[in-house]
């Protein structure tokens, strides 16, 4: 009987996790179009010097500092979006274009967290980005 209760509880947690974070996907998509897509392209594929986010950007959440980095890059930190809208956009984007790379214990960004990170934007993006990329490469054994 106890095992049945455990099973039901586990199923309940699993279904809650499957629902994902609550956000307005339409609003997030429009905000992505207006603030990101012009350079990052509709699917986040990138081109030339613009880095590929599709099937990659979720990796940043697996390494220390990566979670803050995604908010501190100029495109995020300087976006004409308030903290709640930026958190919504990031959560939507991560699940939309890089769900397979997210850590299993992915926690959606909150507005307060985003506000804290973007208060310290990066002046030299590559100096922070390269070590993160190296850590990600080590994770995947490359």
């Amino acid at each position, binding site marked *: 009987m106890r095992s049945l209760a455990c099973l039901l509880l586990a199923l309940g947690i699993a279904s809650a996790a499957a629902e994902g974070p609550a956000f307005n996907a*339409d*609003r997030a*998509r*429009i905000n992505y*179009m*207006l603030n990101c*897509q*012009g350079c990052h392209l*509709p699917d986040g594929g990138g081109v030339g010097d*613009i880095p590929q986010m599709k099937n990659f950007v979720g990796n940043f959440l697996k390494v220390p500092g990566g979670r803050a980095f995604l908010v501190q890059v100029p495109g995020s930190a300087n976006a004409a979006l308030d903290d709640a809208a930026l958190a919504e956009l990031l959560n939507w984007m991560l699940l939309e274009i890089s769900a397979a790379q997210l850590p299993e214990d992915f926690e959606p960004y909150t507005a307060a967290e985003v506000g804290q990170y973007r208060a310290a934007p990066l002046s030299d993006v590559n100096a922070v980005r390269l070590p993160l990329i190296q850590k990600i490469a080590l994770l995947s054994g490359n």
Partner: protein
Amino acid sequence: MNLTRFADAIDHWTERRARGIARGSSRRGWLKTLGGALVGGAVLPLLPVARAQAASGVPAGTSVPAGTGVPEEGDPESCGYWRYCAIDGFLCSCCGGSENACPPGTEMSPITWIGTCHNPADGKSYVVSYNDCCGRTPCGQCLCNRNEGDLPMYVPQKNNDINWCLGTQSAVYHCSTAIIIAQGLD
């Protein structure tokens, strides 16, 4: 006897019909008809009337493929056309292309400046992508400079004064399109 005459009559009639068809048509005439049907069928949906008729409620936030489902009014060869609310450059519509397509011999930039414009035909806002066409010298026709939503150069992703011929083989600017990519939320 009667049967033979009847057979002769059919034979005669068939021969006349066959010769008549051969005289009145060319052997490759069907190609012309088929070609006409193909081209006509392709061009017809592009006509503004058809586009206006096809206008329907596009759900907010969904992508809008070029030329479908958006009610239209105004002249795409004029700066006042609603989609050009934030444009700065030459209209591809005046340069051998259209508001949706580059002129022949140019390459559309994948990197683009994106804003929103108010459509007077249905009173709704649409997300517009000003993809530049690149690879030939500036077109020089229909220079338009409307700057709704334009921000200073230090916000480059929202500035329309910079050259958006990025990610193309050539960085030479020719003209600008104004492509609808979504309907706004309000």
